[in-house]
């Protein structure tokens, strides 16, 4: 079952900086996408993989997100014809009483250079779709519901999705297979989450993002926010009651 997975996740304790930290801290006005050049981490990941890289990746800005879940509802709508937070291939979790920016976590499929879901699927249902720019997909017809892809995903939470009604797995295909989408989907087309997000907190990039932690995926899409004004002292006593 999904909760039984023993696969280790990439460690985050040693993280010293993020790309966002770099962008904001340096005062740079560079847009996030402008920094999408190959870093050693991305180059190493690409070289190590025996699979063709995806030509497109969904990235997000967790500090710009408004927590409306429009992306999730749009995702399940165009794929399944119904809205559901459990079936959405993009996941936004909001701890609403936690202070910004720790109140939001966003999880997207990373279209891994070495996709463990593809590698381990015993039914050949999880595959790389060459006709759609090598996006990693699951063929629902072939899926036998063994959940190997869920357990193989090296990230927590796993980015493959379990439909407990259909007993099948699914995953983000960048909208390549969307029977309920009025637009042409897929890496070369539109993605329901991207076009629905009211604040532009999602975008598609073509370069393989930095694979360390979320550095390459949680990027600064919006201009850096202005600093919050300092607290003012409490009101003085009234001049007259």
């Amino acid at each position, binding site marked *: 079952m999904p909760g039984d997975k023993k696969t280790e996740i990439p460690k985050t304790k040693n993280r010293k900086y993020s790309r966002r930290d770099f962008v904001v801290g340096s005062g740079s006005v560079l847009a996030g996408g402008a920094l999408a050049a190959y870093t050693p981490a991305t180059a190493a990941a690409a070289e190590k993989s025996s699979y063709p890289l995806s030509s497109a990746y969904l990235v997000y800005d967790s500090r710009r997100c408004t927590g409306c879940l429009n992306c999730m*509802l749009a995702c399940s709508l165009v794929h399944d014809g119904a809205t559901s937070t459990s079936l959405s291939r993009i996941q936004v979790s*909001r701890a609403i009483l936690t202070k910004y*920016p720790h109140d939001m976590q966003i999880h997207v499929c990373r279209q891994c250079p070495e996709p463990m879901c593809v590698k381990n699927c015993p039914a050949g249902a999880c595959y790389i779709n060459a006709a759609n720019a090598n996006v990693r997909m699951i063929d629902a017809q072939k899926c036998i519901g063994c959940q190997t892809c869920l357990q193989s995903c090296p990230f927590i*939470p796993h980015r493959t999705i379990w439909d407990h009604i259909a007993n099948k797995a699914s995953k983000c295909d960048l909208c390549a297979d969307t029977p*309920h989408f009025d637009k042409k989907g897929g890496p070369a087309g539109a993605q329901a989450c991207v076009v629905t997000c009211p604040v532009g907190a999602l975008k598609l990039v073509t370069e393989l993002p930095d694979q360390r932690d979320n550095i390459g995926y949680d990027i600064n899409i919006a201009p850096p926010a202005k600093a919050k004004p300092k*607290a*003012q002292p409490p009101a003085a006593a009234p*001049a007259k009651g």
Partner: protein
Amino acid sequence: MATPGFAGKILLVNLTTKQISSLDSAKYEAYGGGHGTAAAVFWDLCVAPGDWDLQDAFDPKNAVMLMTGPLSGTGLPFAARTSVSGLSPQCWPVNWFCHSNFGGCFAGMLKMAGWDGVVVIGKAESPVYINIVDDKVTLEDAKSLWGLTTWETQERIWQRSPARYGTEWQKFGDGYSLQWPAIVTIGPAGENMVRVASLVHGGGSGAGQGGFGGVFGSKNLKAIVVIGTGSIKVADPKELRIAREWWHTTWPRFTGLMRAETGVVGANCMACSRSCRNRNQIYGADSDNCAEATWYALAPPYQRTPTEVQWKSTDVAQKYGLNAMETCFMGPMSFKVTPDFPVQPELPAYTALGWYLKKMYDLGVVGPGKKVDTYPLPMDHYDRVEFAEVYAMAISKRIGIGNLLAEGTVRFAEKLGRLPGDFDTILRLTAWGYQDHWSMPGVEWAYGNLLDSRDINNHDVYRLLGPKKEVTCEEFVNIIASRTGAGGNPLWFDYSWKDEQAYKTGIYSEHKARFVAWRQHYATYYKESVLFCDWGFSNLYNDAGPGRKGYTPEAEPRFLKAVTGRNHSFADGMEIGRRAWSMKRAIFVMQGRHRDQEKFNGYIYRPGASFCAYANEKPIFNRSKWEWMNCRDLYLDDKGVEQWKTTYYKLEGWDPATGYPTRKTLENLGMKHVAAVLQSKNRLGSG
């Protein structure tokens, strides 16, 4: 098979018997969902049996009903509200059937769990909360939560749930989710049956008006918790997305982040895009950015309260679970009065509890050593946030004078022996004891307050009236009349209030009666039952729209058709609204409502009625031409109001002598069963 957009069943929980069952939603679809469905359910459960006098909102027989609408959770903007209905302890002098609603993600989550609503009756022996995990519903012990604030309660319940950050998908029932359970809860105020206690969901999505927090408390119900792992079926998914995009691109003013360049990171209710809240600037995350954001905001003669202090204070109101609109201090706005106005150079926008208390203190009516002592309130420190904290605690726990304040402004004034005198001057409350808000000179808001049971809080028409640079007054009224979608007449928007023109085309005319009927039917269906948010709907005029036309009446039926598949026109929806509005009328009548009771409080009939308003410039039809005129001097005349009521009752098919609905009206609306009960109580209208 339920209609798409509806889950198909309503959860019914009897806390006395601990019985958990369900009602078939299809039986109530003719009432539209939300508040309309709640009214019909209330009739069946609480009125029709005839074993209750319908007077006390704290009676275990009262039903508190949280309802979704057909669009909840389907990914449409301005459609995230959860409706709350039942007898209201805040309503005065009768605990009328009333409504409130709150935003956030509760409605969507409830629908995904497979429920169109939750109806709670009875009273638990000891504190409980209702835990909904898809179709599995349990009553959980809440003794350890009793006494906690709304925020502490939610945190504690989340700790009990599998929801965590940085963990794997969590199993809820048969499904999995990464969402945190949606919780609506009460704080100490609700527990102590404070009549102005709210329900709070998240940081500050609150159902304030009505005092339903106190109803929860009277039932020993601390919270309702829901997580849904299911899906909401949509009739035409492609059209739904296209319709949303059409709306976003045709009326672009309502898209995207409101404050993109200000450094404020917006936060939205489920599927909305207005970003009313913000993630990074409210002191406590998600506390709010609406009326409660100025709960403690002093205006002259005091030094204006710093924004950060206001935010901290807002958190206080949210945590205790207080209705901020009712208990606030004076709001950020005050309005100058005429020199002869008694004992008051300025009036605050809302003469709410915090302000009225200070006024009584200044007048020597209450205070240390007085008949009504102000213990434990440090009245000399009224201008400090510490006062607000003691004030909130005293009300919520009914300490000292807090026990009187907990009854709300109108009952506090009554206890002081100040009624009805203060109604003529400084206490601007609706007939049923709610803060006046912005009702005058927009008389349609005032009439709505009178006919319904609370401040109807419909900003839609109020905020669009006012001089426009782009169009003449005549062009303006023609545009908005054309967008009413139901034979609207420009004269609906004539605010002539003097001489015979007031009766001919103005505020006492049949035109105004038709407009008020339109508005009540619209609000009852589209806003309270479909649950479009007041900040987005209706929209008759829009600077960004084609020909400056708003998206009413196009967006409502298009969205609804995409979700439900029903080929309902805008007018069909208005008819559902009329049906639900008449159902409400029948409930009011069973509670004792009569034409003679529907009278405004004194200030409305006197100069000064329109002191407290921004939108004083109204369209006036001056016999031959339209012009904008300042209506700050507008007040109502008793004779005109009584004539207007006669006209309005006739339009609704209610007996003008009593205000009771007639058999013909009810039967035409498919409510023969309602007519039968009214007749058995001799409360059926003639005609």
